[in-house]
Structure formats: C-alpha cells, structure tokens
C-alpha cells in the first residue's frame, strides 16, 4: 500500500504540482485578470445596464451574427465579455469576442490572456489539442485520488493519535511537512480531487452515457440542452428592452442574479433571449435558464428542474469551482490549494531524501534518481518562476506587440524550461539554492516593475483602498519572502548521514 502511494504520487507528481499551483491561482483569476489589465478602471456596477450596453454594441458591430453571448461582469470581474457566432459568409479571421467597460465601450487595454490562462492550464494544459491536455490531467487526478486513499490507509494511525502530527527538525522534517499539509487539509484534498474528476466525468467515464444513449448528443440534450438559434423569418424587429426581462428573471429565481445572456437570431422577429442564473449565488453551479421571446419580452420557456442526481453533480462542480465563495472562504480555498501544492512538492522531495539514503554512492546517483531530482527542482522552482515571469511579461512586453497574449504565455513556458535546464546542468544543491533565490527575486520584482510601468504602486493602492491591486502586490511580496526563506534554509542545510539506527527508523516510518 505504501508502495502504491509512493509510485502513484511520484509518476504524476510534477504534473500535479503544476495543476495545484495554477489551480490555486484560479480562485483569484478575476483579480489576476484585473491586475493584468491595469488600464481598466473599477468594474461596472449595474449588471442590467452592462447587458443593455452590450446588446447595443453587438447590434452595431455583430449585426449579422445569429448567436450572441454576453457575460456581464460578475462581482469580481473588470469588464463584460462578449462572444458571437459570425455569419456564414464572414471571413475566417473575423472577430468573435470583445470586452466592454461599464459605459458599453470596448475596453482599451493591453491584450492578455489574464488569469484565465492559468485557470485553463490547470485542466487543459497548453500547446496541445484540448482533449489531450484534459486526458493527461484526468490521469493525474485519478492517480491523486489513489494516492490520497492509499495515503489514508497507510497512515490510519494518524487519525487515532492526531496530535502526534507535527513539524519536526532534521531528516524527518520533509515527511512531517508532507503529513501535515496532507492531513490537516485532507477534506479539501479529497473534495478537490474527486470533484475535479466529476467536472469532466463524461469525458473520462463515458460508458454510463453509452449504455443508455445511442449518441452522447442525446444525453446532453436530455440533461443540458443548448438551444440553437431559430430560423430567420425575414421580418425585422427590434429587440425588447432588457431591464424588464432581467427583473422578471430575478423575480422567478428569487436568490440568484444574472450569470450570462444569450441572444438568438437578433434583429429578426423570431429572436430569443435566454437568461441564465449566476453560479456565484449558491453551491449549485449549474444555473436555471429562462427563455424569453426577444420581440415581446414574454417568458416562453424555462429549463426543467433538476433531480437529485443532476443536482449532486451541479453542487460537486460548484464546490470545485468555488465561484459561490465570498472573500473569507475564497482565501480558505486559495490557502488550501497552496497547502496541496506544498503537499505534492514535499512528497516529491521526500522521495529523493529517502532514496538518497539508500544510494550506493550518493555522489554518483543512478539515472532514475538523477531524473527525479532534476524534475523536482525544475518543477518546484520552475512553475513558480513561470508564474512570476508571466506577470512580469504582462508589464514588460510592448503594448502594441502582435500576438501579445500569446507571447506572455510563451514567457511562462520559457521560464519553466529555463529552470528545468538549469536544474539539469547544475549540481542539485546549488541548483536548488540558485533557483529558489531566483524565484524569490522574480516575485519581488513583480510589484516593482508594475509600479514603474503603470504608476499603480502598492502604497497608492493601499491609500485608495484598491484591494485587488494591493492584495496582488502583497501576495507577490509574501511569495518572494517565502521562497527567499526557502533558499536561505537550503543554503545553510547540512545533510548529515543518519546513524544506522535512525536511518532504519526513517525507512520504517516512510515504508
């Protein structure tokens, strides 16, 4: 069982580290995006006005499109996001999306993928077909679930004598760190892993669908139909005003606000407006959709109520996404994710610490050991370095650069690759110290570079009560301090070979 825990964790550990690190950041993806678009002022307060402005903008700029999708800014976003389906005769490179500010004008901000890149990376990776990324991450998530269960089975006595759990000194400290970050936040780890699998369940385990439905489309039609735009009648008609529709929707929902709005076949008498409730207002992520006649503004349909099974799935997805979380709980989610990142990282290091004791010649380890050690250093230092570099690139890349968003993402991977390369060529001890110190420096630079290039520095943000910017800069500084402390500890660390008796005890404890 311990063997299973070790190998299930090790084989996917580096990928899991990246998933946990970027996934944790995703709980603040709106704030990260706002920080990465400093030109955008405070978010628009009035959701109905935002939708109406979006409709006006789309009427002018996407009139031929048959399908508009409007996501008004949530409580935490900076701008409304618009998507539309260009008409069939539009050129291939036609625009399909836009961001609008509170006044309904297109946001004039730097092109960036924002916090959404980090969020998407944690379930889809990058530079590969979307399905490949999701499958790889699914495998990692399944291995994580096995690691958790086998970890619990192996260490069940920790629950009997809970307060034996502590962080000690010396060779046991990596095991202690792994146990503490694992056990103390165990409910979160179990929840996040299982619900993560559930969010893409039909992709990983499609056989229940196959058993009951001849095509997957039939299943999705039965559970979450996605209405297609109705055929044009050819009779032009203006779209009904949105405010009364919004009021009716809120009255029907009771406790939820508007999540997104779809306009089908706009400008034609057959037009429809579909209003979906927001997932910020309750644990159940999947909302209710109300369909209104776009010309008269009358309610003509609503999504059917969900039974227990579908509601369970909806709550599980909601728990994972955490969109319902208010600030205190949102920080708990974020810190729990960081604890998970530390749990994976300490587990990876623990493997090398334990194996080093068994090496015939510690100065010349075999290839497998060297590979794990390099991947450890290159990932545990590389992923944070990549994240910091992504933020730095956002401030440093020229504003008018072509493919600017893509270049920021490239900087992320370039930094990770550089760290991995450094870890491969340098002796391990030196690589750890040098890379951890570099990560600290990179994070410390982020608020500095931001202040120099945008004029929004930490002091000004604190004075103005701008908690998004101030909070972001403070977290960067905190991470810099943490990695700086880690670099210093590694520099002063003296790896003493254990006396035989204690080495046996360590081996027994981690068997």
């Amino acid at each position, binding site marked *: 069982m311990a063997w299973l825990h070790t190998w299930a964790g090790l084989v996917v550990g580096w990928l899991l580290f990246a998933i946990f690190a970027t996934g944790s950041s995703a709980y603040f993806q709106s704030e990260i995006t706002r920080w990465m678009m400093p030109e955008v002022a405070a978010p628009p307060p009035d959701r109905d006005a935002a939708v109406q402005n979006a409709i006006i903008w789309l009427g002018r700029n996407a009139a031929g499109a048959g399908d508009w999708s409007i996501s008004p800014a949530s409580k935490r976003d900076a701008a409304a996001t618009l998507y539309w389906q260009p008409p069939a005769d539009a050129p291939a490179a036609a625009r399909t999306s836009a961001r609008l500010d509170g006044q309904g004008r297109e946001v004039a901000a730097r092109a960036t993928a924002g916090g959404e890149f980090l969020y998407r990376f944690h379930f889809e990776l990058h530079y590969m077909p979307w399905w490949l990324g999701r499958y790889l991450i699914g495998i990692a998530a399944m291995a994580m679930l096995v690691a958790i269960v086998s970890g619990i089975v192996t260490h069940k006595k920790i629950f009997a004598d809970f307060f034996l759990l502590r962080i000690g000194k010396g060779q046991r400290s990596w095991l202690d760190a792994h146990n503490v970050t694992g056990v*103390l936040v165990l409910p*979160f780890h179990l929840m996040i892993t299982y619900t993560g699998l559930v969010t893409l369940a039909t992709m990983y385990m499609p056989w229940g669908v196959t058993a009951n439905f001849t095509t997957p489309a039939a299943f999705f039609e039965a559970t979450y139909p996605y209405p297609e735009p109705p055929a044009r009648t050819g009779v032009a008609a203006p779209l009904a005003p949105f405010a009364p529709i919004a009021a009716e929707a809120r009255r029907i929902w009771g406790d939820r606000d508007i999540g997104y709005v779809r306009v089908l076949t706009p400008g034609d008498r057959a037009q429809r407006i579909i209003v979906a409730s927001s997932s910020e207002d309750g644990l159940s992520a999947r909302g209710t959709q109300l369909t209104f006649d776009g010309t008269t503004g009358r309610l003509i349909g609503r999504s059917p109520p969900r039974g227990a099974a579908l509601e369970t799935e909806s709550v599980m997805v909601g728990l994972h996404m955490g969109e319902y979380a208010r600030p205190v709980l949102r920080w708990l989610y974020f810190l729990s994710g960081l604890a998970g990142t530390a749990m994976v990282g300490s587990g990876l290091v623990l493997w090398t610490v334990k194996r080093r004791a068994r090496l015939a010649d510690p100065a010349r380890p075999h290839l497998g050991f060297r590979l794990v050690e390099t991947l450890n250093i290159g990932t545990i230092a590389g992923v944070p370095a990549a994240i910091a570099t992504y933020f730095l690139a956002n401030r440093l890349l020229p504003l008018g650069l072509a493919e600017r968003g893509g270049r920021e993402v490239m900087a992320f991977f370039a930094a990770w690759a550089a760290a991995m390369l450094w870890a491969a060529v340098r002796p391990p001890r030196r690589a750890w110290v040098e890379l951890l110190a570099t990560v600290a420096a990179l994070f410390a630079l982020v608020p500095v570079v931001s202040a120099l290039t945008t004029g929004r520095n930490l002091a000004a943000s604190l004075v103005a009560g701008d908690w998004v910017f101030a909070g972001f800069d403070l977290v960067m500084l905190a991470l810099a301090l943490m990695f700086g402390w880690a670099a210093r500890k590694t520099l002063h660390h003296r790896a003493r070979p254990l006396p035989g008796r204690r080495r046996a005890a360590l081996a027994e404890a981690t068997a």
Partner: protein
Amino acid sequence: MIHLALLLLALAAFAALCLGDARRQVDLLGRKLAPGAAVPLACGGWLLLALGSVAAIAGLGAYGVVEWTGFLSLGAAAAVLTLSWRCARR
C-alpha cells in the same frame, strides 16, 4: 460576525482537544494539568466541534458547512503548529 465566531469555535475546539490528552499537556505547557482535567477538556473540545457544526448549518446553511470545514483545518493547523513550536524549543 458569525464567521468570526465559527473561526474562534474551531480554534478553541482543537485547543481543548489537544489539552485533553495528558501527553500533549506536557508538550504544550511543560507540565501536566490537574489529573481530572483531561477528560472534561476533551469532552469540551468535542462539544465545541458539535456546537460549531450546528451553528454553521443553522446560520449559513450549506455554505456554512464548507466554511466550517475550512475553519476546522485552520484550528487543527493552529494546534499542530503550536505543538511543533513548543516541542522544538525543548
């Protein structure tokens, strides 16, 4: 304010559970408490946990359950880190 109350309940609960064990009393305080103190402390700890669970559900519903679970991790972490710190100084 219910959020603060729940956090304090969780911290108090784990402190009580920790002190409800004679060996941990030595770790934390350097000495044992009165011989009859362990059982009431442990019971008090479990009581506070139950109280917090009920308060979370009653006050905040399903949201409360999630937040309470998070506070439990914080309470446990506070106890574990305090124990580690006290033991390291010895």
